[in-house]
Every structure is written in C-alpha cells, then in structure tokens.
C-alpha cells in the first residue's frame, strides 16, 4: 500500500480551476519528486494535501485514511510536515521559539536536536537570534529543521533550492538524503539536477493534470520525455 494516494484531485482557487485531475501514489521511503513547469500546479497540489486549499471532488488518502475535508492542523497531527515555498518562518520569533512551536509538547528530544545540529550547524549557531535576521539559506534550513524536530511520516517540501547559493544547495541535498532514510519526502522542485540526484520515484504535472509518473531513473534516461514535459533543452 502506498503511503499517500491522490485520486482525481481537483482544486479551484476562487474562480480559477488550478488542478483538473491529479492522481498519483507516493510509496513509503525515499524522495518522491513532483516536477513541472512554472504554474503547472505543483505547489497547489502540496497545499491541497495539507488542507490549505480544499480539493473537491477527489480524495487524498494517507496510510489508507481519507484526509479530504480535515482541518490543516489535524492533517499535520497525523504526521505530515509542510515546508512551504516562502519557508513560513516566524521572523519576530527566535530560532529556538520557531523550533519549539514545531514540537508536540514544547520540549526537545536532545538526540534528535543533536542530529539536526549536525545537518544544519547554523541552527545551533543562531539558536537565540531572531529568525527574521537569518539569511535566505539559513531560513530554509530552519524551515526544514522545524519539519523534522519531531518524527514524521511524510514531509512535503516546496522548492527548497529557490534562490539559494550552489554550496547551500549541495548542503541541502546531503541533508535530504539523510532525512529520507528516516522519513518519506514529497519534493516539489524546479531544479531538475537537484531533483534527479535525490528522487527515486516521480510525477510530472502539466496544466493541472498528471502528465507522467514513474521512476526517476527511467525519466532521466528518456531525454525526449524530459524535453516534452520540462522543456529542458528548449
């Protein structure tokens, strides 16, 4: 059984129909990449899974449980973390306070915190500093760190490399590899090189519909398909 399953998901934002018919299955473990051009509906898909926009009709099932119609907070409590495109950092709060909010009861598991410090040393360095004063890369690290401070079953990450320096992107890729050993990641990404280095399975969204699903290895091997769906060489 797949960890997350989307069936005929349709989402409208106001009068605009953004997702017309999105169906794919995310297997447990590893990184599942959701690719597509700008405006294809990738971010809307993640937000619909989190209940931030209500898909109707269609269904989202997580470990066999239907999440459709649940409140975002209740979806989160089922073990799904969300790293939005704008990172969702609370700039007026310190790094520590940002992390506390992501814990279940306001206390840290010291072993897990040490692991996060190892992945992202900036978190420890700027622990008591306002999160608003961090650089873009550090904010992205904090956003991911917040998603993994508690054990989760699935992490939805929206374009984590956007606007980051290459060295930070490499650091992020290393971190994601390690995180995906413990948790399944559903990654929306425009940077194809980054996605191919991490992804095991993938789907491509085009104009609000799933245009392709399969393994990343097969997709990487099929240059024509890449060009058609992502216009990589156009």
């Amino acid at each position, binding site marked *: 059984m797949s960890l997350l399953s989307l069936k005929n998901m349709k989402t409208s934002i106001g009068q605009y129909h953004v997702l017309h018919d999105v169906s794919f299955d995310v297997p447990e473990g590893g990184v599942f990449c959701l690719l597509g051009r700008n405006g294809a509906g990738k971010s809307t898909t993640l937000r619909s899974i989190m209940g*931030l926009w209500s898909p109707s009709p269609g269904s989202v099932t997580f470990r066999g449980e239907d999440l459709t119609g649940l*409140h975002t*907070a209740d979806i*989160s409590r089922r073990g799904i973390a969300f790293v939005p495109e704008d990172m*969702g950092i609370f700039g007026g*709060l310190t790094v520590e306070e940002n992390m*506390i*909010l992501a814990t279940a009861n306001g206390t840290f598991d010291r072993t897990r915190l040490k692991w996060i410090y190892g992945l992202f040393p900036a978190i420890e360095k700027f622990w008591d500093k306002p999160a608003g004063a961090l650089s873009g890369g550090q904010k992205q690290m904090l956003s991911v760190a917040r998603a993994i401070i508690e054990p989760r079953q699935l992490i939805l990450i929206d374009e984590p490399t956007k606007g980051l320096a290459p060295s930070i992107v490499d650091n992020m890729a290393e971190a994601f590899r390690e995180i995906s050993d413990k948790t399944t990641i559903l990654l929306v990404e425009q940077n194809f090189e980054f996605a191919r280095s991490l992804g095991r399975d993938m789907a491509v969204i085009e104009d609000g519909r799933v245009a392709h699903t399969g393994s990343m290895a097969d997709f990487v091997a099929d240059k024509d398909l890449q060009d058609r769906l992502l216009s990589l060489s156009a």
Partner: protein
Amino acid sequence: MDKLNETIDRLGGVYLLPVAVAAVCFVLIGAPSSWATLTVAGLAMGMMIFLMASGLSLVFGLMDVLNFGHSAFVSLGAFIAASVLASLGGWLGSPSLMLNIAALVAAFGAAMVFGLIAGWFFETVIIKPVYSDHLRQILITMGALIVVEELILAIWGGTPFSVGRPAFLEGAFVIGDVTIEIYRFFAFMLGLIVYAGLYWVLNRTRLGLLIRAGVENREMVEALGFRIDRLFIGVFMAGSALAALGGAMWAGYETLITPHLGADMMIVVFIVVIIGGLGSVQGTLLGAIMVGLMSNYVGFLAPKLSLASNMLLMMVILLWRPNGLKPAVK
C-alpha cells in the same frame, strides 16, 4: 528620513517618543506642577485606552478581523460596572477599606465576566460567518454596535448615568506642588499591571508564543498542528473582557456615562491601534500613552486644537512610520 530613523533607534527607538513629547511640553508649559499633573492625567488616560484597545489590536493581527463593534464591550463594561457600583452604594461610602475594595472587585469582575460571555457570543454568531471579508465585517460589526447601543438605551435609559466611586479612590495626594488624583494613579497602576500580565503571557508562555506566531503567519501555525480558530476565540474573549474592564475604569473616570460612550471611544481606540501598529501589544501601549499625553498637553496649551490633536498625531506618525510605531512582524 533613514538617517533620522537610525538616530532615533540608537537613542532608544520609538520608546523615546513619549519622553520626547513630555520634555518638549515641559518647556512649553513652563510650570512644573501643571506639567506633572497633566502628565499623570495623560498616563492614566493612556492606560485606560490601552485596556480598551489591546484586544482589538490582537484580534486584527491574529485573524485579520476588523471589529468595529469592539467599543460595544467598552459601553457594556461601563454600564454593568456602574450598575453594580450603584447597587453596592452602601459599600462604596463605607469607611471600611475592605468593603470599598469588595465593591470595586465585584464591579470590575462583573464587567469582565460579561465581556467574556459577550465576546464569545459576538465571535461565534457575528464574526465567524464573515471571516476574510472585510467589507461585511465592517458592516456587521457596526450594525452590532448600533444594536448594543440601543439595548443600553432601552435598559439604562438615555439620561446620563451617574457612576459612584469607592471612597478610597476619591480625593488626591500632594507631592510638593503637584496634586495627583488617586483615581488617575490607580488607573495608571492597573493598566501597568495588565500590561505586565499580557507581556508575561505573550513572551513567557507557549500560548503567547502561539499568539505571536499566529499574528505573523496564521497558515503556518495551522500547518504545525494548531487550531488557530480555537485560539482566536480565546483571544477574542480576553480582548472583550479587557475592553469591558477599560470601559469600567473609564466610567469611574468620567463619573457620568451615556449609551454613546463606546461609539465616542471607538475613534480614539482605532487611532491607538493604527499608530501603535496592528497586532502589537507593545505598540498599542505606546500609541495609547502618546494619545493620552497629547490629549492632555494640547488641551492645556491650545484647547481649540484639542479635538484634532489625535488625528494630527496619527497623520504625523503614519507619515513617518506607515505601519505604525511598533507593528507585529508579518
């Protein structure tokens, strides 16, 4: 403008503003005793307005709700406290300090409990159906304010209602040449205690952390697993209770109240919330103190400008800082 901002930040930031205004007015007024009396009156007035405005600021910051009916809680608080004090007239005039305090606690307690209940009803029945629709929020909350005013008119009548004060809050004490009304001193101290309590809750508790985070990014707080709508009801009720307490204090300050008390205060409360910066309790305190001081200083120095002083203050501050003095981070 940037250089001016940098210099001000170096000297203590916007917190310096009331001190600077007080210093300038000290020179303009000339007589230290008059200046001191006006300053204490301004601080007391500012603290009472802070009580009324702090809830409104948080409600707007947390849920983007424009509640023009907020001042209905001020009116209700004032009339309920006045009624309780009137029914306990014997305790008010009693030489026993304990009976005096008991009357005051009963009046303020009744006002706050009613504020809590009215806040719950208001949020659940009136506000909830119009979340994320500002135009409908303005219309329905102003409508609710009119209904509350008419209710007060029907229950308490249209003639000014006299408000009794406990004996221990009557009179004044003198320090040197300066005469300070006990009630004003009490209002200032009560406001300070409430501010300290709010500051502690917002900065030292997990609940406060959630409120501050919710003001910044409601959606992300929900994505972290918290029901912000439930938190909002609590904040709305607390804000309503504080407004009712502010109304109760104001009733004792004015000693004669009318059903239009809330509507009259609404403009001042909105000015305070706007110049302080939406969603910020510290900003609201700063804005309230500024409005309180300016009203008293301008009323003394140029009485004809007294009515316009708050509007002028708002214009100047918004030209300098369009988001207010101390806005919450968004």
